[in-house]
Structures are given as C-alpha cells and as structure tokens.
C-alpha cells in the first residue's frame, strides 16, 4: 500500500463519460475541439489523451467518439443508471449492456 492517500472531495458522478485508450490515442485533441461544452482539456503532456475536466457537463452527444480520427482511441461509457436492457427474441433471455 505505497500509494499516498489524499483528502479529496467526492468525485463528480458520473466521472467517465468516455474511456480513452492511451495505446491508440495520440493526443491530437480533435475531441477537445468538437465538444460543445468543453468536457475536456488538452493533456499537459503532449501526445497523451485529453483530461476529462467537466464530466458533469457531458450531454452524451457522441461527437467526440464519432469524429475521432483514430478509431479505438475513445469509447463511449454510459453511466450505470443509463445502461440499456434488451431481450433475446428467440430465448427470452434479458440482457444488459455490460461492457
């Protein structure tokens, strides 16, 4: 348990409207520009994925994901309470978006 524990306030919920893949994302910041509400700011370290600064302002329009020039860099991540349910018509089994 070497990790230092800071006194932080509760984290804004939900905090991660998207999940970046730092292996694919090259920090081009296109998503920072297309976002209507400035959910993101550029990462202080060049070439790294942006920082999610205002996740509470996300309206889930999807432009950051849709317009990403390097597919796979950024994935949508619905808040738990917004995950969808569906049902297999043949088997009747109820399924959920549990990515």
């Amino acid at each position: 348990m070497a990790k230092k524990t800071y006194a932080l306030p509760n984290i804004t919920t939900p905090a991660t409207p998207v999940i970046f893949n730092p292996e694919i994302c090259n920090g081009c910041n296109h998503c920072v520009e297309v976002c209507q509400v400035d959910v993101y700011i550029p990462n202080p370290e060049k070439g790294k994925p942006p920082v999610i600064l205002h996740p509470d302002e996300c309206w889930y329009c999807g432009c950051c994901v849709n317009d990403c020039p390097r597919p796979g860099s950024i994935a949508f991540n619905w808040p738990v309470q917004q995950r969808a349910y569906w049902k297999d018509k043949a088997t009747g089994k109820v399924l959920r978006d549990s990515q």
Partner: protein
Amino acid sequence: MTRWHDFIEKDGRPPAWPYPIHYDKEQEIDTDVLIIGGGIAGCWAAISAARKGVRVTLVEKGDTVRSGAGGPGCDHWCNAPANPLSNVDPDEWAQHMTEPPYSNGIGTQIQCREDWDTLLEMEQMGGKIRDTKDEYVGAKGRDEKTKLMISPRYTKVHSYIPGMQKPVTLKSNPEGKLNNVVIRVWGSTFKPVLKRECKRLGVKIFDRVMVTSLLTEKGVQGARVIGATGFNNRTGEFMVFKSKAAVLATAGDWSLFLMNTELAGYNFFRSRTTTGDGAAMAWRAGAALTVMERNGVLMLGTGFKHTWYGGAGDASYENVPIVDANGKRLPWPTQGWEDAGAMRPTPENMEKIIKGIQSGEYALPFYGDFPGMPEVERRATWKLMLGEESTTRNITESYEKGGFDPAKHLLQNYSFIEGNSPAQWRTAGGGGPVVDWDLKSTLDGLYVAGEQTFSAGDHSYAAATGRYAGRKAADYSQQVGKAEISKDQVTLEKARIYAPVRRTEGIDWKELHAGIARAMQYFCSEYKTEHLLKMGLDALKEIEEVFVPRLYALDPHKLMRGIEDLSLLAHGQAIINASLARKASSRMLNFLRIDYPKVDPPDWHKFVTVQMENNKVKVGEMPLDYWGDMKANYEARNKDYAGVYQGK
C-alpha cells in the same frame, strides 16, 4: 491519466489551466453582419449573408464544427412541401402548419417555400441527402429516380399532443396519397460542411466566444442594435463586435426549470449551452418578446430518467412495433408507415394501456420489436434514422458494441417503469423576439432566426429561417451607416461579466442555477396564480440582489456557465412577466391559471408581448395572425428571391 484527480494522486496537484488567461485584454471586431450563435440557423445565416458580398462575423460558444442542437446530426428534413415528391402545395401546407395557435406563420411560410432549395444547397456543399449508394433499395418512401427517401413522419397525422391527432386533409393532396413533406437525410454530414463553407466564403468565425449583450445606439434600451459584447470562454478575453446588422441565431432555453447538480449537462434534451442567452440579451436591449408564457413538459433526458432515444419507443422510433414483456402488440403508434406518423397513443388507447398494465393484460416492461420488422425497414430505422439523428449514433454504436443486434433483440422501453415527470419539470417553451416579414425584431438592426423565433426547434426550420434572415440582414447592412459604440455601455457590461472572477469566494454556477430553477418550479409551474407569480418575481429579484453578487468563477469556462445563469435569470423574469400578463388559461400554451381557469376564451386568442422600456416592463398584444396573408406577404417581400444558389 485522463481524470483530473489522477493528477492529484500522481503529482500532488491538479493540471494547470491549459489556455492563457486574458481577462484584461480586449479585442474590437468591425463587421457588416454579425451572427450570434453558430448552430444550424447561425451557419446558414452566415453563408447567405456572405453570398451577398458583405463582411460577416460569426460568434459561437462551442466550436462551429459540431455546435448546436443539430451539430451532431439530423435524420429528417421537415416541412419541405416544395420537394419534387411532395403531394401538397407549399402555401397550403404552410397554412395548415400554422393552424395551431401561437405558431409562427412567418417562419413557417419561409420554411415551406424555401426549405427544399436550402436542402439542395446543402447537397451542393457536400451534405448527403440521397441514397446514392443504394443501401436502402426496397424501403418504403424511397424513390428510385431521385434516390430521395421520404420519411414516414407526419405523413398524415402530426401532433405530439394526445387528442390533437387528426388526419390531415388538404385540397392539394390527392386522395389516398401521403403528403411526402418530410425527407430522410444523412444529417451527421451537415455541420462540418456548413463550417467549411463559412470559411470558404471568408466568414470570420470566433469559436468558444459567448455573446453576453447587444450594444445599442447611444446605449439606449430600444434603440438600433449596432453590435455586441462577448468573451472567450477559454481565455477570458473580452470582445466588442461592431456591426451594421446582427442575426440572433441562439437556441431556446431548456434548463430553466431543472438543475441536477451532478449531471449538469444531462438535465434536458439539449446541452447545457442552451440557456436562453439570445432572448435574455434581446430582452435587456428592449426588444419585444412573445409566447414567453408557454411551457413545455420535460419528459425525458433529465438524467433522472433513461436517456432520450436510449430505449425503444420512448422517443420516435419509426416503424418499430411496441410489444409487452410477453410479445403482445400494444396499441402504441410507431410514428411509421402503418399509422402515418402518429407518435403518442390517443387518450383512449393510453387509458387502455394503463388499464391493461393494472389488470395484467399487458406485462411490463415493454419492448421495441426490431426483429419483427422487415429487414430493410429495420436497417433504415436503426442505421439511417438513429444513425443520423442528433445524439443517437453513439446509442446505436455503443449498444451494438455491448452485443445488441436489432435482428435478434427486442430493445427495452422505459415508459411507465420510470414514471412520469413531475409537472414542475418544464422547458421554457420556445418564446422569443417578435419578428416581421424580414425576420427583423422590433429593434432596428436585429434579425432573428431558428428556434429563437418563438418556434419549434427543428433542423430544417433553423436552416431555412437562418438562410432567410442572413440575406435580409445583409441587405439592411448595405443601406445603413456606422454608429458609435457607447463606451459607458461597454464599461457596464465588462463590470457585470468579470465580477465573478474578481471574487475570491462565493457560490458557484451550479448552485445559482439550482436556485433559479427551484424558484421557477415553485412559482411559475403547474399552479399559477397572481400571488404565486408575484412571489416568483420577488424570488428572482432576491436571487439577483443577494446571490448574484456572490457568484464566483474559478476560470473562464465556469465564468461562462455563471453568465449563462444570468441569462436564465433574465429569461425567467421575462417569462413570469408574460405569465402575469396573460389573464386566461390556454391548452396550447400549457398554461393554467388557477385564478383565470377559463381555457382559451375567445378574447384571449392573441399574442401577449413583453418588453423593457427604461428598465420597466411594458405589456402589449398582437392578433394571432398578425402576419396577414402569408402567401401574399411572403411574395411581396421576396420578389428578388433567386432560388438555389448559382454562384461560386
């Protein structure tokens, strides 16, 4: 490291603000036509003004490439009765669309006449409007010759209001034929090409700048509009725009009545940027506003319920049959071909469904039966309609990634199990400046387009009225001279804007927004009386005098959100004043006065207007058809209309 608290844990401090801070800098921009708001209406206004050869400046709070309600996309182009497949006469259709009281006959006439030309210009610029790749051969509504795809929406019935749904019969519509006025489009391609065309035409674009006020001649309320002020929401730099004509192309106000402090951006159907800034700045400048007393009901998208479009049938899922948990079909319309566009069950069917739930006849939850649809219709709904609609591509794509297959799976519907919204969750129902046949407001130099023209916020309406207002504003700008900006007006505005960043502590924008929203819920919602409404004005006044002076902002972004709250506050004041002025109830306005319970009495069949004169509220009225003969007046004002753009 993509969350800010990751930086605390790694570096012991948050990241620095990534943009230079310039609260002390000021930029002055001189232009002929100033466009306020870079959404669909604003981009079209900028393009049509620039095509008239004048200097155009466009100012947008986000980035024009995807900003506005129509920024992410659009799947259907409404009210295009002049399209080659239409079975109705555009003027008759415009008349029909204006039948419901308190709609905007001027904007509707413009839309019905010019909407098809607008769409063809969209195609010229590179937007996709036809099934050129033959992806949907065999889909109903697809025309092989033009490759246009007619949408099933509103083909016979079009109303969201239960009880108002009736088949439409028009003289020009041949018996047995659908009207064919709505066209399916690939609207996710639209916004980037609009920005590209603005740039190509030399429009000066200022992205990430919030316009905060209109400047008037000599700084006098009610005088000619000669510019605007704004600030950059990343750097804080102040901007003064000097213009000969301005087009107000801002959105409505969707969050006045509700604030969920954790899901601040997810309160409503639109992004948090739609805070009624345009109506608020027009109000403060002295323009007459109308239909301010109308309320909408916030059914979905609140963050407290399932996402709009995220569940089958909760919004508009064309042609998807709704079934119960046992697969039994419900009498729920599909907004599709079989019910000619109906969206909500009739009151009788709704009662039947509710009784059926209680008796066990219909088992919850309900589902959208995608697998039960013909393959091409299913694909058209899933890939074209939902794939191109504003915020829905991320829904279809992320559901697919999660394993959803529309050929195999029924998508759950959240009606009933998530409950109804409280009546106090409302939208400020789309009032705005009074406009004339040039889409000019009551102030010289100020034109209005899109949702701001006390009208519905549909994409094609915004496009057609933006295009129209842009060319009228350009004409006006060529007839008038320059005016001197009042230094006092600029100084006062600067003091108002920067006060929250001068403070070292206080309340933040979310708390202020929540306070304003709660006052609106208590005093201007389901139960309206003279006494409650006056309490509402007092409550907003108290917020203005006690809490606004404590508003505190950490950075230019939060400063913008705080200034948006001040728009909400002014918007709320205009709404309550209009609500006090209408001393009658009205069904179409969703406006019920306990002290004036008579619903739509004939002597109140009129528009109520409110405006500020010497900082005092002045109430007025206009006849419901103040625009006169729609066809004759449109034609008289547009003898020089050149149709589809032929220039470079």
